[in-house]
């Protein structure tokens, strides 16, 4: 009987401690022994290359003042956002988190992040590229600060150009030229392609980008209006279909199946002569391409004068709703997105940063090919668009993509597919 009693008591004590644990920990974690406020910072930068860079930035910040201590927590890609959501719901979130740039408004609408307007003045936004700043605004208030971004460029193989009798200093500027060049760059052995000049859906670009480009830069949804089934977008889809017919289903599928690993990237391996990808793709050419002779250019325009459109993405730093130290968190965010930290990040990661001053400073400091590609990517930011997820149509891409797939598979005609896609998205609209 005595033993039983001890068991019961210890069980109760155990449950008690377990329950008490979580609460106590967060209370303790708010301040260091010497009175500094602890700012909990979550990022997904845990790789061997990125982690030391972000931690150096944090260390520099911690050393720069004596009121705040930033503590970095690494969470794996994907997990970080579900975990953030759960912690916001539980009322115990981190103070600063790195999040996706295209869904800032969605999180603001759903009360998952803090309004930052009271911590920053009007001129703060001038540090950043305007197209990035637009994405962090929701109902005229900023809910995040842009951290980094990217942009798509056309990479082309200069040796292949020479071989095909094309001027390696004159990359294609329009869709028509792109087709003409691609045909010249193809190498066929009977029915089999040894080298494909170009295929518009390979690399880091999709049908939506070409459709936007044809439509004068107009995306599927703009200012709450739908522009899915437009004549220009139908035309672009038909154009994409043409490429597929030229190469044949088999070629496209077998090339696609080989993509993925860095060593066998078809552009670097010389199997594709022109390739659309983000600026940092250059680091793969540098590391695996063995002195490859390549050039970069903006993605060709639909026609002369219609503009070279490109699209981008990126990440922001934001304060989750209910964070304990928003003021201190904001001080750290200001440092993180300030010229010094941003320049360091860009130099080390070869990444496009959101801070204009930092980006321009990096261009000046780099040399050789590093400078050549980085400068092109920074210049390209001016014609780069972001497509933030509209609050009223959170899942619109999943409704459009299958219809585009069906066109490319030859199952439906572009007009019909886009009409259906527009209808599907309309149905989805949230009140």
């Amino acid at each position, binding site marked *: 009987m005595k033993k039983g009693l001890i068991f019961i008591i210890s069980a109760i004590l155990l449950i008690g401690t377990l329950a008490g644990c979580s609460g106590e920990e967060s209370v303790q974690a708010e301040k260091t022994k010497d009175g500094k406020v602890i700012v909990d910072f979550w990022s997904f930068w845990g790789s061997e290359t990125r982690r030391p860079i972000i931690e150096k930035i944090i260390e520099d910040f911690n050393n720069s003042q004596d009121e705040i201590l930033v503590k970095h927590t690494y969470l794996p890609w994907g997990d970080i956002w579900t975990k953030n959501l759960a912690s916001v719901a539980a009322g115990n979130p981190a103070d600063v988190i790195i999040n996706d740039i295209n869904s800032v408004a969605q999180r603001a609408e759903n009360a998952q992040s803090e309004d930052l307007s009271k911590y920053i003045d009007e001129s703060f936004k001038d540090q950043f590229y305007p197209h990035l700043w637009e994405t962090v605004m929701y109902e005229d208030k900023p809910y995040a600060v842009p951290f980094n971004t990217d942009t798509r460029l056309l990479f082309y193989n200069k040796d292949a150009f020479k071989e095909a009798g094309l001027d390696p200093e004159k990359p294609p500027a329009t869709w028509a030229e792109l087709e003409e060049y691609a045909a010249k760059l193809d190498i066929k052995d009977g029915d089999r392609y040894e080298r494909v000049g170009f295929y518009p859906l390979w690399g880091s670009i999709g049908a939506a980008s070409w459709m936007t480009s044809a439509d004068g830069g107009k995306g599927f949804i703009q200012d709450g209006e739908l522009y899915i089934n437009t004549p220009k977008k139908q035309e672009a889809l038909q154009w994409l279909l043409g490429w597929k017919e030229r190469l044949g289903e*088999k070629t496209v599928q077998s090339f696609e*199946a080989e993509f993925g690993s860095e060593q066998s990237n078809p552009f670097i391996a010389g199997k594709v002569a022109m390739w659309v990808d983000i600026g940092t793709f250059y680091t793969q050419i540098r590391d695996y391409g063995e002195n490859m002779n390549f050039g970069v250019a903006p993605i060709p325009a639909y026609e002369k004068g219609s503009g070279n459109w490109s699209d981008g993405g990126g990440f922001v730093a934001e304060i989750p709703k209910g964070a304990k130290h928003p003021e201190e968190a904001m001080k750290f965010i200001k440092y993180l997105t300030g010229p010094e930290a941003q320049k360091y990040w860009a130099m080390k990661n070869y990444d496009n940063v959101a801070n204009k001053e930092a980006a321009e400073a990096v261009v000046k400091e780099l040399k050789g090919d590093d400078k050549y590609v980085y400068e092109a990517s920074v210049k390209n930011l001016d014609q780069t668009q972001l497509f933030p997820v509209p609050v009223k149509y959170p*899942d619109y891409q999943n409704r459009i993509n299958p219809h585009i797939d069906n066109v490319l598979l030859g199952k439906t005609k572009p007009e019909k597919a886009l009409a259906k896609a527009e209808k599907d998205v309309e149905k989805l609209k949230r009140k």
Partner: protein
Amino acid sequence: MKSYDTTIARRGADLAGKKVKTSRRRMSRQTRENIFGYLFISPWIIGFLGLTLGPLLFSLFASFTDYNITSRMNFIGLDNFKRMFTIDDLFKTSLWNTLYYVLFSVPLTTAGAIFLSVLLNQKVRGMKFFRTLYYLPAILSGVAVYFLWMQLLSPSTGLVNTFLAWVGIEGPAWLFDPEWTKPALLLMKMWSVGGGMLLYLASLQGVSASLYEAADLDGAGVMQKFFYITLPMISPIIFFDVLTSTIGSFQIFQEAYVMTENGSGGPGNSLLFYNLHMWNNAFEVFDMGYASAMAWLLFIVVMILTIINMKLGKKWVHYEGGDNK
């Protein structure tokens, strides 16, 4: 021993007219044992109430709201369910994909496992080696296997199509062709029938040899013995296997999430399974209310199918020595 001693001691104290706590006396040995029993299983009870039943009831409630985890939870009645059938076309696509998969995977894997187990039940030298060999794939599982299969199914360099080319067949593009994505997954599923095979093997060993001897005397052939003795004798295991793999197949998620680009559900949504669509609603657009409604609908569908299975099972499952109840 000790408690027995104390009981005697207490009785002794009673007899001596000393005061004993009344509550203790009222609590019989049986009740005390019950209390201890409950205490010992209390971690499970607490876990079940807090981590299973609680969330379950919560999601049932959430299915009638527009819950989005952080800001909203308005009661909207049956709107979520209406949305499935009237607005959300992907719901139908995902349901169809899942039904297709269940309809093919359950019979195929069951038949495959039975076939293998009968083969591996022969008394041939080196059988242990083959049993191990065929069971091995069932041990390997998860994401690594999916990656392996993505390599095997690669249209131009994959082993599957290379092999097909040897025998003069031009293989399809498998995961890149919406017509072939589901067959590709079924092919992959067949690779891991070893788990079911093991169950059947165990039950085959339990089939009494005397039945076969009697059949031999009656002049029964191999096929007759298989259909009139073997199958009925292992039918309880077949029933169990069909029931669990039906439920399991309805929950297919990982394969499609890992093997399609960004977990999108593959070309033309051909691998958008019910659970993948539900996951997208819950964790991509944070429409938890709708996702909860989808979850409960799946529960109802699976429950109805299980009841039908149980009813049908009575007709063909043979329980040795039982009265078929």
